[in-house]
């Protein structure tokens, strides 16, 4: 196991090891292996930054080299998934997550004009129709991919289906896309971003869910039905709704 290219770390107790595996796109992945007291009878505890549960085949005869090759197989099977996401990360402005890790399958991509698209890529079928949700003025929840080409990447398909050019780091400043909340004047509030948008296209003012909820619930004119609050946009006074804040 003293292969330098595979073993990147071992602690002084020889209990925790980190094994490296590179996928064929050149991305480096690390598997942390913690050997149990009853090793090798008991399977070691494994952790890695991958979007799927780590399931390895282990018997008392299994070597760490075999474990490593299982991990290599796993990251290779996820290569296409990471290719799809890397393309999105490089060519668009990703609003969420702030710093995506290899296990994050979701991306919220800026479209411009306060609109964004939330894409959830299936790690096992990265080129299949991703789960999409459009956020922003005069958009509604929809999941339509009629003319998609299975040969193309997710980003190219999104571009073709929506007939839009995604603003990219090459063409736009991020500040022009990360539009601040109309109530607290900030973009990131407690790790949340302004994902509530006034549906009037002339307004389109974004708000944090918590900010909008806190404002509307204090007003006597606000109505509530189940967990939805009905009120007026503080900017244009057109009807606006917000889900009640989740109890923390």
């Amino acid at each position, binding site marked *: 196991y003293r292969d330098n290219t595979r073993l990147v770390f071992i602690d002084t107790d020889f209990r925790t090891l980190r094994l490296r595996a590179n996928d064929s796109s050149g991305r480096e992945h690390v598997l942390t292996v913690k050997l149990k007291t009853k090793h090798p009878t008991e399977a070691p505890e494994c952790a890695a930054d991958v979007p799927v549960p780590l399931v390895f085949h282990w018997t008392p005869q299994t070597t760490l080299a075999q474990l490593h090759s299982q991990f290599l197989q796993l990251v290779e099977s996820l290569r296409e998934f990471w290719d799809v996401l890397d393309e999105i990360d490089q060519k668009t402005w990703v609003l969420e997550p702030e710093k995506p890790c290899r296990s994050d399958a979701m991306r919220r991509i800026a479209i411009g004009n306060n609109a964004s698209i939330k894409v959830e890529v299936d790690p096992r079928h990265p080129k299949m129709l991703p789960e999409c949700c459009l956020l922003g003025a005069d958009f509604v929840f929809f999941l339509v991919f009629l003319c998609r080409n299975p040969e193309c990447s997710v980003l190219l398909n999104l571009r073709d289906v929506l007939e839009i050019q995604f603003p990219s780091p090459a063409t736009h400043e991020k500040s022009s896309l990360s539009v601040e909340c*109309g*109530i*607290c*004047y900030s973009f990131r*509030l407690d790790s949340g971003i302004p994902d509530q948008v006034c549906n009037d296209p002339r307004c389109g003012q974004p708000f944090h869910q918590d*900010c909008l909820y*806190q404002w509307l619930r204090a007003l006597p004119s606000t109505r509530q039905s189940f967990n939805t609050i009905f009120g007026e946009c503080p900017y244009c006074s057109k009807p606006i709704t917000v889900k009640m804040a989740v109890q923390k």
Partner: protein
Amino acid sequence: MQRISRLKRELQMLSTEPPPGITCWQTEDNVNELRAQIVGGSGTPYESGIFSLEIKIPERYPFEPPNIRFITPIYHPNIDNCGRICLDALKLPPKGAWKPSLNISTVLTSIQLLMAEPNPDDPLMADISSEFKYNKQLFSEKAKKWTLEHAVHKSKVITPHCTAARVSRSTLASEANTHTHPVA
């Protein structure tokens, strides 16, 4: 939480792009308090005066309006002798019209507008209001006199008889005693 990020941005905007005729800054000793100055509009009785205001930022800001009052005495139908201002943007609905889309800058601009255009139908000072309605010349003269006395020479000390005169006329006389104008 919202309050901190709001104030930070607002102070930044107020220093980089203040509204015309208005300055606003944070006081050194209290982060919840701001000071502002409004220059009296030309063609109004407040011309050439500089009016100081005190702004208190409530705990729930921007879900609640800022608390603003004049420090400089001003003769105006909608501003009482404690400096309190009758303006719907400074009150929460249903009575008022405060919304978080307003901010310190827009509210100060509304006050500047109110100075130029008093609203005698929603008076705080009944006497001044009827004077404004029925004897505008007298109102104008008095307002100019007050401006000259209190807002032009900043070093001028408010004379006791002047305060007394206002207090006796005031409908809020009892409170006036505890809210004397701290004019330097």
